């Protein structure tokens, strides 16, 4: 199924000359103009650059050329992806005003495929958070209900797609930062296998966990985006050296005969809402009805995932964020007596509370006397999670779980208690620790009318299978309303003589 105003449908219409890229862009920019003030998905809207790019795409089509598989598709980029000449802030004061000297590889690849960049999206500072409230520039609001969070950390990207500001977006996922906001905003969000997508130009948070991935309105659209950004890159030595099967290669294959495991430990977890549990059960029944063999499977070590993650990720962050010292770029506190004073004052003024907490937590977990008890033990837990997943995949093709424990919560509801906030990531973290792919698919709404996501987990490099199952799930999902602003995009359409195609 391809969505209206989706990645695949837009590029097909632009490539065939039915619709102009500039009209598609302007339709989205009009929705931005009318709704962005309420949603605050963007740190910066790059409308003028986008118009220039869209006009170039139209010129290529007019000249008989092919602009590529993402011709004229409006895309939003999480503001921790480097864009040459356009500020990249990580929603942190410490990088305010910084202009990256180069484009991230994923940005280069999208541009080369004909994508048009609408803007840079808001995030929890340095991708640390689950609500996009930890932004130096203020929170993003959920397009389905502006009193609620969009999830995080890629909340701006999820909200931009849900609101109709862009057809697709990129985010980064270290412990669930693509999948959890996708679930809370009612869009598709995928975290690829570790190493499938280059991270050159993704500003590092936790290097053994970070991956770049797509948001879109449909599974096919997300797979199409992933196929453009994935693949070897000499600029990232953690990127897999070999090309892999296209993520979209098994779409339309159904689930007949596939073995799907419902992760037992992720059904009765602490704080899991009843409506989420009910939707998961409905999803399992639906897949079973479509011909899959659905059974319970135990993956015992995943219950320790959250604890292991909140030792490993801060440890890596404390090292990665040491580079922000006011010497080469970004904020420098003026009038410092000496260099140590400058470090102290620049970092203390530039980082927000959550970033400070994680840097200190990581420094503590790595410090003499505690290393073995915390960081060392967490790395061993990681081994157990990898082993337990491997055992589950001996009997199952893919696994199923909720994406998040509840629907989107009210802004401010969890911001005073970091631990409660961290519990949002309990179902998404294990895939990062194992390096496996996982995708969140919208599956109806909760008792409050807000979107619910179901997560499909797959073994390393099994993206084609993962999207195959996700697409079936999507086709069986209960109806869920589009946001008011995305509905306004639908009504707006392209010019009347060409709009029918979308």
């Amino acid at each position, binding site marked *: 199924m391809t969505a209206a105003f989706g990645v695949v449908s837009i590029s097909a219409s632009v490539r065939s000359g039915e619709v102009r890229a500039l009209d598609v862009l302007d339709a989205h920019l009009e929705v931005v103009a009318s709704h962005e003030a309420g949603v605050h998905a963007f740190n910066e809207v790059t409308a003028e650059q986008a118009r220039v790019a869209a006009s170039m795409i139209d010129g290529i089509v007019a000249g008989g050329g092919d602009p590529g598989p993402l011709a004229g598709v409006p895309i939003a980029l999480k503001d921790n992806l480097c864009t040459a000449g356009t500020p990249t802030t990580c929603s942190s004061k410490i990088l305010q005003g910084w202009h990256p000297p180069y484009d991230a590889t994923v940005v280069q690849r999208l541009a080369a495929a004909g994508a048009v960049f609408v803007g840079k999206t808001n995030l929890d500072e340095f991708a640390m958070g689950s609500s996009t409230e930890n932004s130096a520039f203020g929170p993003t609001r959920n397009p389905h209900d502006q009193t609620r969070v969009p999830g995080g950390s890629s909340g701006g990207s999820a909200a931009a797609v849900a609101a109709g500001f862009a057809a697709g977006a990129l985010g980064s996922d270290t412990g669930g930062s693509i999948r959890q906001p996708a679930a809370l905003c009612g869009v598709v969000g995928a975290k690829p*296998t*570790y190493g499938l997508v280059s991270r050159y130009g993704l500003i590092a948070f936790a290097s053994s966990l970070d991956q770049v991935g797509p948001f879109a309105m449909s599974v096919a659209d997300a797979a199409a985006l992933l196929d453009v950004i994935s693949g070897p890159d000499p600029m990232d030595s953690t990127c897999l050296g070999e090309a892999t099967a296209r993520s979209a290669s098994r779409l339309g294959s159904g689930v007949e005969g596939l073995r799907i495991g419902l992760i037992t430990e992720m059904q009765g977890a602490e704080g899991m809402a009843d409506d989420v549990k009910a939707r998961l059960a409905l999803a399992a029944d639906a897949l079973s009805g479509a011909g899959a063999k659905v059974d319970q499977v135990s993956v015992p070590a995943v219950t320790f995932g959250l604890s292991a993650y909140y030792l490993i990720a801060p440890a890596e962050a404390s090292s990665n964020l040491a580079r922000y010292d006011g010497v080469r770029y970004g904020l420098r506190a003026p009038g410092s007596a000496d260099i140590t004073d400058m470090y102290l004052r620049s970092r203390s003024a530039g980082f927000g509370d959550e970033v400070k907490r994680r840097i200190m937590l990581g420094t503590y977990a790595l410090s003499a006397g505690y290393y073995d008890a915390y960081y060392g033990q967490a790395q061993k837990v990681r081994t157990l999670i990898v082993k337990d997943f491997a055992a589950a995949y001996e009997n199952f093709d893919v696994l199923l779980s909720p994406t998040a424990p509840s629907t989107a919560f009210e802004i401010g509801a969890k911001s005073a*208690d970091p631990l409660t906030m961290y519990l949002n990531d309990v179902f998404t973290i294990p895939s990062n620790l194992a390096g496996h792919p996982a995708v969140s698919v919208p599956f109806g709404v909760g008792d409050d009318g807000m979107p619910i996501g179901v997560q499909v987990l797959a073994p390393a490099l099994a993206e084609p299978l993962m999207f195959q199952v996700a697409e079936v799930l999507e086709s069986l999902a209960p109806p869920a309303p589009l946001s008011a602003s995305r509905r306004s995009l639908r009504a707006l359409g392209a010019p009347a003589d060409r709009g029918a195609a979308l």
Partner: protein
Amino acid sequence: MPRSITTDDVAHVARLARLQLSQEELTRFTQQLAAVLDHARDVESLDTTGVVPTAHALPLVNVLRDDVVTPSLDRATVLAEAPEVEDHRFRVPKILGDSQ
């Protein structure tokens, strides 16, 4: 089992991490970090005897390239982002204090 984190511990790691905390921040962060570490402590209940730690989930090998000079970032572009520059270099406040 390690003891609970104290304000002295937090002050110590803040110094190591080059962060300056007010008294209010020190108290608040200590409580918050203690709650997270108390939760994280459940990893200790697992028997990990003989378990090999995982640093990266997927096998990684050294990646080598041919020793050929390729273009790097332009020096002027990079220096243009610096807070202070002198003579094509990053300028910083004095490194040795008066007492040193």
